């Protein structure tokens, strides 16, 4: 069966700096796939290429049989791919509710939006308490929740998550990964997860790719990656 998302030998560069040499990734529908690797391996760049924030220099990105590589980000969102970017990028001077409403910007079904809003508030009760608050005043964990909630408001089929655990307390990380799993299982959202913390990521993912300087170094099921001593030591660092 063809995977939901296929990244085929993609290359990309920031001006003269090559970030992706050759990346090929397959994400099956309804799975959680994780991209692991050190800083600068090209994990975030891969997500940026998929969501259209960055143009690939070569290669193809296929989503459900549709080539999406090189299309603008606002078009890609309409194909129901949501990206929670590095550093969360919430709209700091807008309220929590306005941030969420922006998530539903591409949609017009009032009832559906209302449903999703309730669902997001069910996942993240903290956001409901603070819906009138300006987003910049939220704590780091709450901002991460808001960024995820905002992405869920686009009602995605594929969710790209960039380091959801960054800078958060272990308890909150646990919370967030529980929700990631719930989103995947209950709502059937496919998830492509970029993480520094390999242990946590492999605990939820079914398949993993390890990136090294713009290439896929190793890929295997999560269980195999966890079991392989060499991979664990040289790439995952635990």
């Amino acid at each position, binding site marked *: 069966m063809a995977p939901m998302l296929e990244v085929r030998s993609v290359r990309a560069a920031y001006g003269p700096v090559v970030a992706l040499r050759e990346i090929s990734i397959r994400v099956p529908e309804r799975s959680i796939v994780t991209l692991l690797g050190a800083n600068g391996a090209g994990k975030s760049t891969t997500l940026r290429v998929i969501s259209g924030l960055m143009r690939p220099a070569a290669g193809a990105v296929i989503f459900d049989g549709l080539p999406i590589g090189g299309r603008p980000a606002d078009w890609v969102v309409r194909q129901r791919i949501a*990206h929670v970017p590095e550093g969360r990028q919430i709209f700091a001077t*807008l309220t929590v509710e*306005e941030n969420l*409403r922006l*998530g539903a*910007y591409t949609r017009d079904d009032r009832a559906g939006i209302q449903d999703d809003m309730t669902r997001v508030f069910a996942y993240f009760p903290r956001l409901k308490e603070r819906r009138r608050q300006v987003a910049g005043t939220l704590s780091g964990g709450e901002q991460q929740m808001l960024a995820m909630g905002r992405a869920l408001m686009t009602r995605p089929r594929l969710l790209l998550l960039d380091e959801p655990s960054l800078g958060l307390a272990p308890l909150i990380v646990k919370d967030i990964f529980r929700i990631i799993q719930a989103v995947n299982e209950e709502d059937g959202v496919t998830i492509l997860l970029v993480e520094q913390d390999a242990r946590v990521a492999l605990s939820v993912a079914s398949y993993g790719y390890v990136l090294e300087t713009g290439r896929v170094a190793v890929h295997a099921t999560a269980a195999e990656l966890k079991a392989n001593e060499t991979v664990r030591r040289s790439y995952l660092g635990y």
Partner: protein
Amino acid sequence: METFFAQLANGASTGALYGLLALALVFIFRATDVVNFAQGEMAMFSTYLGWSISRPLSLSWIPFLGVDRHLNLLTWRPEVFGLPLYLGSENDGLTRLGYLVVLVVTVAIAFVMGALIERLLIRPSEGKNLLNAVIVTLGIFAFLNSLANFRYGPVPQTYPAPFRGDAVDFGLFKMSQHSLFALVVAAVLMIAVYVFFQRTKLGLGVRAAALNPSASQLMGINTGRMLTLGWALAAAIGCVAGMLIAPALSGISPNLMFGILLYGFAAAVLGGLDSALGAVVGGIAVGVGQSMVVQYVGSQWSDIIAFGLIIAILMVRPTGLFGAPAVKKV
């Protein structure tokens, strides 16, 4: 006491005009973070466009109409089955329908002009340095000013006011119908701008695009289109301002707007560059303050006090009276 109220009314109506221009400035600032020096000239130029289409238009280029047909939109009296379609007429033949048609057409042209300016001139200069876009607006300022001088000449042209009846007597003071009209338009536009930004999805999109372009794209917002829309709407508001300012002063001339633009800046900053309410309130405050100073202190003090006050207020409230406090970005 009577002069006091007269000056108050007088100042408020000039101030409403400053406020309208300030509203356009606020619009662009919220959408693109650019302080638009060309706003006054854009308003002036579109007012000239309005003026030229309110001249008798030659229709001889339309086939099968006969050779010598002219249409004067301002005195146009279309009738359908003998029923007049125009609303009331003034003593010199102007019809409100005609005025409205001219206004709508001109505002539409201004809208397109604003969009084109953003797309062709502002967009390529945007990037790391905010000053580049500001310098481009200075370039547009010089360009439009000189083009108007070239096309229409330096002599002021009269432009009609839609309401020119007797001044309305409020007991304590009188106010001309045009001034009242300007105040009402300013208030309506202020509310419209507020509602647009705070209550509509599109307005939210415009705000988001200015705040964080890449995150907005991830929400499916076409950020480029938002910027274009911001400029286009600002140009339209500026056009309305121009068409109300021209009859209130001595008509339109190429250099009419720069002085008013400066007061518009003052008004916008006084109210806070991101607040629609602030722009209009700031405009009225500047207008009233100005006429009070002229009346009680002396006209040579008017600019000194007006702009001195701006500095003083900014010292106390660095983002204006109604502006949101600045959020430091890390």
